[in-house]
């Protein structure tokens, strides 16, 4: 039987309360979101926080809304609510496509977008989506609120720029009129972590790629994105040749590790192929196809 080690627990009722609790409980206190990474890690003694600050019952951290020219997603918004969000689907179908291949319906009832971002698993699908869309993390701490681009939010595998007494409160994504977006993933079985994934948005104007963002998870792409592939595509004609050339860069510039999900060359091949497929579909959507 796996049971976490003894731990203290406090339920936060607001973000300010959560920060106060984190300050009181000290450096070994951790916020808990959906718990679907943290609790298994605690059972295995890979994590041993002395106290948990529960963020689940903080209403201000929930929900998807539009603020000006951004979509704002509360950090404790559950995967299922992202899957079902009409706002996200209208502007960025990539969210629904990614959510469909994240875990299973019961886990999606519990897991959150902010928890996923802060867990910083190298294979986290929503981190690739957030980097592709060049989103922003909204962070609150004792000294106030700060914003960090999602492409600078992760310091490496399982590492973020959050200080121990800071809480991720929301993720923001700029609305891009005319953008198409898509998510592609190869997994060993439904709901597993990806072997390789690609998430992109593309804005095509007059047959030319005016803007794009390319994200990859599970293949060691730094900050879950491929700026080299983006540079190769922006300003080019929206053609199969351009997409293939950009996708090739994504495959070359990622840094996958060989593991039980496959060898390095296979993962590079998948990264190229999945990036190509996502670019094709996103560009077609941008052109109203």
């Amino acid at each position, binding site marked *: *039987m*796996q*049971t*976490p*080690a*003894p*731990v*203290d*627990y406090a*339920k936060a009722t607001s973000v300010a309360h959560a920060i106060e609790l984190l300050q009181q409980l000290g450096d070994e206190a951790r916020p808990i979101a959906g*718990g*679907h990474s943290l*609790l*298994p890690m*605690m*059972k295995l003694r890979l994590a041993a926080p002395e106290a*948990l600050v*529960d963020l*689940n019952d903080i209403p201000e951290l929930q929900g998807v809304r539009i603020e000006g020219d951004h979509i704002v997603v509360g950090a404790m918004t559950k995967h299922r609510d992202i899957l079902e969000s009409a706002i996200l689907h209208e502007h960025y179908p990539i969210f629904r496509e990614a959510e469909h291949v994240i*875990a*299973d*319906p*019961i*886990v999606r*009832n*519990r897991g959150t977008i902010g928890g996923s971002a802060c867990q910083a698993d190298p294979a986290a699908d929503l981190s690739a989506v957030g980097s592709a869309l060049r989103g922003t993390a909204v962070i609150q701490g004792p000294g106030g609120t700060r914003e960090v681009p999602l492409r600078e939010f992760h310091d490496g595998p399982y590492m973020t720029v959050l200080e121990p007494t800071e809480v991720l409160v929301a993720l923001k994504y700029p609305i891009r009129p005319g953008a198409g977006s898509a998510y592609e993933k190869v997994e060993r079985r*439904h*709901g597993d972590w990806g072997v390789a994934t690609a998430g992109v948005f593309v804005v095509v104007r007059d047959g030319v790629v005016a803007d794009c963002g390319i994200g990859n998870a599970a293949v060691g792409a730094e900050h879950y994105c491929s700026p080299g592939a983006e540079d190769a595509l922006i300003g080019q004609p929206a053609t199969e040749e351009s997409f293939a050339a950009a996708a090739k860069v994504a495959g070359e510039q990622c840094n996958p590790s060989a593991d039980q999900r496959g060898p390095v060359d296979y993962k590079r091949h998948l990264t190229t192929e999945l990036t190509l497929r996502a670019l094709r579909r996103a560009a077609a959507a941008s052109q109203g196809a």
Partner: protein
Amino acid sequence: MQVTVTVNGQEVTRDVEPRTLLVHFIRDDLLMRGTHWGCDTSNCGACTVWVDDEPVKSCTYLAVQADGKSITTVEGLEKNGELDPIQKGFMECHGLQCGYCTPGMMMVGRALLDKNPHPSEAEIREGISGNICRCTGYKNIVASIQWAAEHPVSTEASEVTA
């Protein structure tokens, strides 16, 4: 820590350690053994219960997190001595097999039908994709949920006597 939850309509209060998992609280503190404890890693779904009417995997949920909330376990499906159609479906279609995954399958099956009373086979398979049957007898489980969809509670009395 003191925890007060409503389990299958009945309020209970217990003193628990914060590290106690909801599945162990249900099985070992409340002595309700219908909920099964399986993989312990939120993969298999045998421990699925509803918290405020949402299916969750109770091996990955602390009992203290349920304080003030309403929990429904497989024991709560039966109403007034009458089995829920999902339970009858598993009987009719031999959906139980070894029985280990059954409580979780029934809880997700019932929750699925509550949201979508006429799911397609693909929707049922997606709905139970977080629940593993190691007999690999998914065909009968899908058939059991389909049976329940075809025999909803409201029309049941007439169909049973027919």
